[in-house]
């Protein structure tokens, strides 16, 4: 690579990383507790658990569950009902003032066997809530999400340009060399290169899937426009089905589950909400195999008649969104994977921090010998000096 190209890549690496570093540090630090949010929830006692009952204990009708939840918040409507993947004893009912997307929601956890209210999960306060909001949208809604998505894109640019620059830096060094007995800047340069290259694939994956996740709202909106609008032609001109005219949700659910043997319910979106149409209860079902359990099959059931209107295949972009979620969260391989996720996250924090340090200390500690080597190789400094003939043993 000639010196002009190295200079260009160095410029790209310097500015893409400088712009996003502060936000990436924030994301890495807030992401650390989020990796363990279930465990922290247990410790803080905010995780809701249903009392143990024998398997096969009869369940109350979902319509009754909805009545119970609505009685807690008579001024609100139900947007979603969901179940945890590994525990179908609890219904989580989400209530909002209108069917529109909002941050103003209340949840009620109802025991699926007794129909009793188990808890009012606090979804808008506490340490984990602050961590989540800082991580997802900086308390700024969709613009905040898209901004963080753009910072994620700059991170990807910084990673790619960093990989391009790895070669000129490591030309004269063995893999993993850390020159710790020289000045601190050289040690941190070597650590930056080492940790950057070993975490490369993981950081790129988590960065890219994080960026995709910031588009989730837009992707779902596009899905409605792209796929649902054709299905909803027969309903054109009709208003959102009034609550009083809706049929039994329990019966609709039975019909939906019967249409897809072997699948389990993930969540239900009610008429007029962002995951449904104005005229349907939409049942999102998941498969029962490790991979298919991460994908969702929507079943649109007419809210008045209780008959299935359609069961459209999930388009590729929603499949991509769903698959990108576990790859970002690191929650799909048990506790050892969560711990590895945390360690890789910490390594990324060190890469970001050392990169910032190398930039702040730029140009002050360049050894004369390094300059000689640099001229000999025609490789100028990006954020630091590449390995020089004078400072590293030649082994080729």
């Amino acid at each position, binding site marked *: *690579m*000639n010196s002009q190209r190295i200079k260009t890549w160095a410029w790209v690496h310097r500015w893409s990383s400088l712009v996003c570093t502060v936000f990436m540090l924030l994301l890495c630090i807030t992401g650390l507790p989020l990796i363990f949010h279930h465990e922290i929830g247990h410790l803080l006692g905010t995780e809701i658990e249903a009392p143990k009952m024998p398997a096969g204990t009869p369940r109350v009708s979902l319509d009754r569950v909805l009545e119970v939840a609505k009685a807690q918040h008579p001024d609100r409507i139900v947007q979603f009902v969901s179940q945890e993947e590994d525990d179908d004893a609890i219904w989580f009912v989400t209530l909002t003032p209108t069917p529109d997307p909002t941050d103003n929601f209340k949840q009620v956890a109802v025991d699926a066997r007794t129909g009793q209210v188990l808890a009012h999960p606090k979804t808008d306060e506490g340490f984990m809530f602050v961590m989540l909001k800082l991580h997802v949208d900086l308390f700024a809604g969709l613009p905040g999400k898209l901004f963080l998505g753009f910072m994620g894109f700059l991170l990807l640019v910084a990673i790619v340009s960093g990989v391009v620059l*790895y*070669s000129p830096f*490591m*030309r004269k*060094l*063995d*893999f*993993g*060399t*850390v*020159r*710790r*007995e020289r000045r601190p800047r050289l040690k941190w340069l070597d*650590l930056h290169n*080492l*940790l950057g*290259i*070993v*975490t*490369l*694939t*993981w950081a790129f*994956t988590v960065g890219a899937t994080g960026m995709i996740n910031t588009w989730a709202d837009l992707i779902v909106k596009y899905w409605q426009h792209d796929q649902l609008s054709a299905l909803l032609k027969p309903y054109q001109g009709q208003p959102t089905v009034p609550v009083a005219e809706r049929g039994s949700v329990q019966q609709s659910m039975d019909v939906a589950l019967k249409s897809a043997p072997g699948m389990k319910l993930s969540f239900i979106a009610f008429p007029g909400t962002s995951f449904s149409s104005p005229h349907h209860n939409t049942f999102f079902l998941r498969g029962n195999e*490790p*991979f298919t*359990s*991460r994908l969702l099959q929507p079943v649109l059931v007419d809210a008045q008649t209780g008959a299935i209107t359609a069961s459209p295949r999930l388009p590729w972009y929603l499949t991509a969104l769903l*698959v990108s979620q*576990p*790859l970002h969260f690191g929650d*799909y*391989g*048990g506790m*050892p*994977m969560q711990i*590895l996720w945390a*360690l*890789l996250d910490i*390594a990324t924090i060190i890469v970001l921090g050392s990169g910032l340090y190398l930039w702040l200390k730029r140009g002050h500690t360049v050894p004369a010998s390094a300059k000689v080597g640099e001229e000999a190789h025609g490789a100028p400094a990006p954020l630091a000096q590449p390995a020089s003939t004078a400072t*590293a*043993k030649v*082994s*080729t």
Partner: protein
Amino acid sequence: MKHPHHGHFCRVWGWPIALGLLTCIGLVSALFSDGGLGDALAWVTLGMPVAVGIWFGWCRRHPRHP
């Protein structure tokens, strides 16, 4: 690359490519597993970059190169 010398390329990129492949295997294998072999494979393969980073970054006391 200016010096497409085989030995040179392997010396610079051998480790990074190996670790990248291991990471890919780990990230994907756990997607297709629920507490089974795929998860264990992911722990080993994703553990490699972590182990390599810790070993070269902090544990190795006597680097071969000055």
